[in-house]
């Protein structure tokens, strides 16, 4: 199994090097004539208004938080799914209980209006 991960490690390294090749080639071949107008930030063709920092909507954070809880839940379900065949029927009910507790959480967040994008 360790050779598997060695393969994936080498894959990652080569996978990062291969896209860099056309970038380097482009750096060698393409013209470079910077001037202040070209380097300015794009805003639909007009001058920029205000900083390049926007008021960040708090709702993004709420969605990321709910996603985190459900991500951990589904990751816990993978070992459960793999041992379904070997063990008797009530094992399924244990998993259903696990899912039901978290569905209750989702319903709570829904009722509290946390899933609205206002």
């Amino acid at each position, binding site marked *: 199994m360790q050779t598997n991960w060695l393969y994936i490690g080498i894959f990652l390294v080569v996978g990062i090097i291969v*896209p860099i090749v056309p970038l380097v080639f482009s750096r060698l071949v393409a013209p470079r004539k910077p001037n202040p107008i070209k380097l300015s930030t794009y805003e639909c063709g007009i001058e920029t208004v205000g900083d390049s920092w926007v008021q960040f909507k708090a709702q993004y954070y709420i969605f990321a938080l709910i996603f985190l809880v459900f991500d951990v839940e589904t990751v816990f379900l993978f070992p459960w799914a793999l041992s379904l065949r070997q063990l008797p029927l009530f094992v399924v009910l244990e998993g259903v209980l696990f899912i039901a507790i978290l569905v209750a959480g989702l319903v709570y967040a829904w009722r509290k209006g946390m899933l609205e994008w206002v």
Partner: protein
Amino acid sequence: MLFLNDPITFIAGWMRTLLSGWGLSSGLVTVIIYILGITVLIIFAMALDIMLVWVERKVVARFQDRLGPNRIGPFGLIQPFADIIKLVIKEDITPAGADKLLYNLGPVLAIASVIILWAILPLSSRIFGVDLNVAVLYLVAAGALGTLSIIVGGWASNNKYALLGAFRMVANMVSYEIPMVVVLLIPTILANSMSVQDITVAQSGMWFAILSPLAFIIFLISAIAELGRSPFDLNEAESEIVAGFHIEYTGMKFGLFYAGELLHAFTFGGFIAVLFFGGYGGFFGLENIGFFSWLNNPFVQAVVFLVKAMFGYWVIMWVKYSMPRIRIDHMLAFNWKFLTPLALVVLVNTAVLSKVLIGLPNWGYVLGMFFSNIVIGLITVEILRAYGRKQRKAEANLNPQRAQN
């Protein structure tokens, strides 16, 4: 073993004897063989990516009742090469105030997160990168790296529209990962393994798309959202925020983002084929009949896999060019209030049935699973209909004169 039956092992064995004959140690030989194999696979993936540009432009043209590129080369086949040359020689404008290192890291990470998926893609029973025993979660992990690349690219551009586009895109991708991971549990339960090779072998009797059509549909929808393609393409909504998180990217860096998105779509088409349509196999037992034993040949299997992956990619393109864009709040409401509960219900149903139906003969098992999915689908449609009726009635009560007109 003949080259035709087992190409990779044959070549690897030949190289090993050759390199050991030169006196290199065994570990180093392994690493060299790996590097050569990986380079070949990645170059194959990038060459395929170039042809996908041509496929995409021809297909979108046909959907829009026009011809597409047909001037450069026969049927416009040389067009992608012209595109690449154009992108390479364009000036690379790094905006003032952009974070140099992160700005360059964004596109590289975006395409690297797609390329590493090719390590586990089973092209055939004997042609693949590795047979990882956690391949299904590896798919999700590569998606996580892709999400990170979008934030890096959007933030490093020092542009408020890029940042807005990146935030919306990440909120979208991250939300749709939940139904995707839940639905990925279903082939795991049905095949009793997380390895893509085992899942493909388990489908030699019956495709998982027939055992669980709802799982396939939910996976298709979440995959399209993960890819950031229409109708979920708010990050590059051309009419809204110009080009989203890659506004400030020019030349080959933009080319890498674009090529990465196309390759990602094709790779997901490949995974749809593997997880739900039998991958390189799935001939319903036909290959066991003596006449059809050539179906077991690795090269035939690779061609079958590529055809199925191209079909999956075509379905993704079909959805893209037929549907209007969905608003961000509708997108997120659709995910959290509809797809996630539905995915969990289908998961519970599959888990329970996989234990209850274990005594029945094969056709009983298949019919039981299939009809349970149909029943869940019908109940869902009825719930949606009742909800729609209730909403229409509430709206009619609010505007009585409008309802009378």
